[in-house]
């Protein structure tokens, strides 16, 4: 038996929540075992119907009067107590902010190692895992020990394909014993998003780097983004220079984007940036340097000064409207 922690926020699945289920299914098959999904929180049951389309046959629903909002220690303690009950070989979660922190807490509490952001899992007495380092620009093969094996799977790696016509999973309630200490860290308040298209959800992203030249230079990129129904981001250089706020940063320490189209303008394409945009379906680079790394890695490129190319491109798009 393996356990799979399903990430949700007050009964709403996160965008990447289901990505853990393909590797969970593969791993269960390889070891000839079954897996159960773990849903924590009284309001979590609303996602049960979704789970059945992803091959989930068994669900542990963790209920406790105080689990009305996200509390990482309480989530971890619930998983620890469920481990004692179900005795799983493996516990998996998605490698998101929440998935990684809950699993790290489970690891600390059970004195086990934890492998973050795996992209391949070979079971055995120890598991041979491949995990991402440097935000995805380097892989590490490693032996993972521990009882149970604790790991998270890298996001934007596994597709989360639906299985049609499956049956509703069997649900078992589990009530953990939790104390005040488990609720020292909990979400006490939320500030909702400001609206507009976020970088991670945008269908088109126009990114600018040092080549944009100034804060004001981004007006050109804003215009192009608006014409294409997209949003604007920037490289780490740009946010460090204060030309854009950090919330607009595309990269290892900013936002990972996966739009249909990413237009990289005046960006050289350092690894820090590349790992943030490599999930894009199509990448167009506009750069005056034909040798820039981004030009060699992109699908399409225009060699030229973005200050001349973008206005021409905007004019050409407007002609069609």
């Amino acid at each position, binding site marked *: 038996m393996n356990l799979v922690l399903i990430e949700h926020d007050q009964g709403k699945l996160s965008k990447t929540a289901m990505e853990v289920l393909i590797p969970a299914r593969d791993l269960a098959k390889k070891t000839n075992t079954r897996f159960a999904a773990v849903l924590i929180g009284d309001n979590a049951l609303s996602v049960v119907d979704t789970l059945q389309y992803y091959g989930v046959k068994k669900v542990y629903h963790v209920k406790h009067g105080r689990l009305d909002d996200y509390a990482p220690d309480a989530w971890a303690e619930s998983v620890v107590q469920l481990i004692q009950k179900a005795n799983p070989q493996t516990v998996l979660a998605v490698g998101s902010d929440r998935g990684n922190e809950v699993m790290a807490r489970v690891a600390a509490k059970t004195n086990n190692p934890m492998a973050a952001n795996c992209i391949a899992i070979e079971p055995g007495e120890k598991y041979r895992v491949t995990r991402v380092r440097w935000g995805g620009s380097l892989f590490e093969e490693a032996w993972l020990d521990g009882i149970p094996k604790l790991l998270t799977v890298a996001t934007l790696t596994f597709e989360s394909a639906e299985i049609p016509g499956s049956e509703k999973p069997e649900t078992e309630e589990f009530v953990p014993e939790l104390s005040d200490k488990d609720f020292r860290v909990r979400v006490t308040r939320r500030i909702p998003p400001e609206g507009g298209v976020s970088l991670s959800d945008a269908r088109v992203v126009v990114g600018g780097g040092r080549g944009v030249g100034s804060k004001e230079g981004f007006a050109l990129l804003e215009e192009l983004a608006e014409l294409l129904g997209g949003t604007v981001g920037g490289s780490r250089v740009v946010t460090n220079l204060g030309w854009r706020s950090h919330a607009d940063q595309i990269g290892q320490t900013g936002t990972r984007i996966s739009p249909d189209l990413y237009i990289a303008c005046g960006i050289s394409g350092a690894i820090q940036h590349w790992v943030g945009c490599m999930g894009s379906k*199509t990448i167009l680079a506009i750069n005056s340097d034909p040798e820039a790394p981004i030009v060699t890695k992109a699908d*399409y490129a225009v060699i030229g000064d973005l200050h001349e190319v973008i206005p021409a491109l905007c004019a050409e*798009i407007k002609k069609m409207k």
Partner: protein
Amino acid sequence: MPNILVCVKRVPATGARIVLTEDEQAINTRYLGFTVSPHEECAVEEAIRQIEKHGGQSTVLTLGPEEAAEQLRDALAMGIDEAVLLQTDVDDWGPMVTAEAIIRAIQSRQQEKGAFDVLLFGNESADNGGYQVGIRVAHALDLPCITGIKGLEIQGNTAVARREAAGGWEIFEVSLPAVFTVKEGINLPRYPSFKGKMSAKKKPIAQQNPVWKQDRLQKIRLESPIVETESAVILGKGPEAAPHVVQMLKEIGIVVS
């Protein structure tokens, strides 16, 4: 007045391509400079800003080779008061044993110099990306831990921290002492002044030598992902390329004619 600890890690400053050593055990750093992980650079800045606001004392700690003293000096030059180097001669410290060594160092330091109120880490190191050292330290010291923060306000014995979630913010409130793991964006780190650099040379770096142990997450080898060597389709040079770009945008369905 808070007593603040900030933990950093020396990592290579990579450019556009990572080259591995022949035995696939490490990054070939012969032609690379070194820095600290971006999240931790912000953690150092945050410690200094909190001290500037509330008064108090700050310490920077790292586990790494002798050369990691360079990263400690950088933090001292920015304005941190004291430094601790857990000097090692083995490169490959996994997340569990790293956390264990830091826990022991914090415990002995606290006995000597008093308890830390705020312990700052990076959310994850740039190179290893284990996402766990700060959490393990917090657990061992029985402290609350808030991860991935991009805002921190200290009011007496309480801290309010915020982190980004689904485009908005989650707000957490905890009593101090507490551990926070920081994400880049919490602030824009300063450059050290000339004066700062000069005074950093005189500040003390305490040194300990923790004993290396094999981690139970054990590296076998590193691998560079296959990079597609196919180069980009060049749609043209300069503004004359615009019609070709629009043609491509039509083909991939971004614009409709």
